[in-house]
């Protein structure tokens, strides 16, 4: 705890001393009379001041929330003896906002006060409530006692889920049951074709109408519903924009929406964080995996690196041969573009959701910047053509374009272009 003496104490002391000396030198008793009120204030103020004992503890009603959700911080503040004024300040990390009035000046009615503060998570990420600043003042404001009580409360804010109606069909599926229609034939709901009866075929599969027409037993063959492995490839080599709105923030939101939707469809989902620090999460399914993925995503940040890394650095177990890779990238770094082209060249089932950096740039100021922006856009167009020529479906994100629309664009590209199949 630190004690701060008001500059008034020093100022009045100097002034009282000055007046007394001046009165003595000038032989005027009035100087003493002028100094008396200030001396009275000093004596009364110093006599009333009592060093308090300050303590604070805090707890949050939950340790993880979604973006925009409010949470309640319970504070217990102890100040003995009870001060006339208690100032409470809680510095919030970027991305958090105070829903209730903060800072505030309290008039404690008891030595221990319980407070409830509303905090809103404005932006996803890992946030930490570092410390609570308490300042007790004496009655005349001559002394202030300040305590910086460390809180050390960690809070994880997950991106707000976006509803995704339809997902991109994988080119290949796994053996486990799921919601994706497999290209193979087996037990399922969707009719694939009709074939001649083979010994071992179940009687309930016999298509009696077709059999009557052909004069021999025909059976229905169906597509089984299977799960797929989906790898969300999150490019964090570079980010364009501000702390509140950037390509990385949007990339994580889109990646989280995709991961959630695939997990709901019983797919196994993994993550590759492609950046200066290579991070990966092996495919898995279920609620626990959803939280693992969200934790991995919100820990993503841009770090500067000049190291050139190839896709071969990703562990083979993470990037399985028949896994569908959905890359979310601003395509702002050549290393990411090369890695994606490499993936496509290896015959991977790859699709790219582009987060265009231009959406996060301020409007060009002046003719020169406008020309530079047009040149930049032209280069981006060439890059998109290059990726399309490599057979990579690409959809470009926009503020008013939901993820479902992006996935529809990818699907449309696949239907219009012959996509490479895995070897």
């Amino acid at each position, binding site marked *: *705890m*630190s*004690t*701060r*003496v*008001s*500059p*008034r*104490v*020093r*100022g*009045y*002391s*100097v*002034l*009282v*001393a*000055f*007046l*007394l*000396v*001046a*009165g*003595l030198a*000038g*032989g*005027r*008793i*009035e*100087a*003493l*009379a*002028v*100094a*008396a*009120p*200030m*001396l*009275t*204030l000093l004596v*009364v*103020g110093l006599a009333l001041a009592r*060093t308090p004992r300050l303590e604070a503890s805090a707890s949050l009603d939950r340790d993880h929330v979604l973006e925009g959700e409010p949470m309640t911080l319970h504070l217990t503040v102890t100040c003995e003896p009870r001060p*006339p*004024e208690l*100032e409470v300040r809680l510095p919030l990390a970027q991305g958090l906002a105070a829903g209730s*009035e903060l*800072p*505030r*000046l*309290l*008039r404690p009615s008891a030595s221990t006060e319980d407070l409830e503060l509303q905090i809103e998570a404005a932006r996803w990420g890992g946030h930490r409530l570092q410390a609570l600043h308490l300042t007790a003042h004496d*009655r*005349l*404001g001559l002394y202030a006692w300040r305590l910086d009580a460390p809180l050390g409360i960690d809070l994880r804010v997950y991106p707000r889920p976006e509803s995704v109606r339809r997902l991109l069909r994988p080119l290949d599926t796994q053996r486990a049951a799921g919601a994706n229609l497999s290209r193979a034939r087996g037990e399922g709901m969707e009719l694939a074709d009709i074939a001649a009866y083979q010994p071992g075929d179940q009687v309930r599969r016999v298509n009696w109408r077709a059999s009557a027409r052909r004069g021999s037993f025909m059976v229905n063959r169906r597509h089984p519903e299977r799960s797929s492995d989906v790898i969300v490839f999150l490019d964090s080599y570079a980010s364009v924009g501000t702390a509140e709105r950037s390509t990385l923030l949007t990339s994580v939101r889109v990646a989280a929406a995709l991961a959630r939707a695939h997990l709901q469809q019983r797919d196994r989902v993994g993550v590759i964080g492609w950046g200066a620090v290579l991070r990966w999460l092996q495919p898995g399914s279920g609620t626990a995996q959803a939280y693992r993925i969200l934790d991995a995503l919100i820990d993503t940040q841009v770090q500067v690196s000049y190291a050139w890394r190839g896709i071969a650095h990703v562990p083979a177990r993470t990037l399985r041969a028949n896994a569908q890779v959905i890359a979310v990238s601003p395509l702002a770094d050549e290393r990411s573009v090369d890695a994606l082209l490499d993936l496509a060249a290896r015959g991977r089932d790859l699709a790219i959701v582009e987060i265009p950096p231009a959406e996060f740039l301020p409007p060009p100021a002046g003719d020169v910047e406008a020309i530079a922006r047009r040149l930049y856009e032209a280069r981006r167009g060439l890059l998109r053509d290059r990726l399309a020529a490599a057979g990579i479906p690409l959809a470009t994100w926009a503020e008013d374009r939901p993820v479902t629309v992006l996935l529809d664009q990818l699907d449309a590209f696949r239907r219009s272009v012959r996509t490479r199949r895995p070897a």
Partner: protein
Amino acid sequence: MALGSAACVLGAALVVGGKGGLVGGSLAIVVLAAGAIFGIPAFITTAGALLAGTYLIALVLQQAPLDLSAPLVGTLVLLAMELGHLSLEEGRYSLPGGNWALAMRASITAGVCVVGFGVAWLVLIGAFWVPAPAGTISVLAGVAAVLAVIGLLIVLGRTSDERA
């Protein structure tokens, strides 16, 4: 800002009331206003010193008899300085819940001013009525000055930030 303006008005009232030289008093008001505007506490103390100093200098130069308005001058100087300092703390009192705190502080300050005024009167009456040789009064004032300087040194020794 309102409190700072009130402080300046008080200072101006002192000057217009003839308590102190016009030049020194005007300078004091300018310094007080600068202290309130730029948030410099030392300026407010300096303004107080200028107001009180010009008042005393005027008394000495005019060789006036005992001025019975000295307690009022001291109280008004204190009030002007307190208002000036309060204006520096307006940020704190503009916080939610700050209105009552400001009201409480103002009432306590007013109370202290009243008590200070009474004490100043007692000092003046004591000096006027108590039959004591002039030398005794001077010695008492000298002792008070020495004690005030020692107190000042103690206060200044306790630096503005103490870590406990």
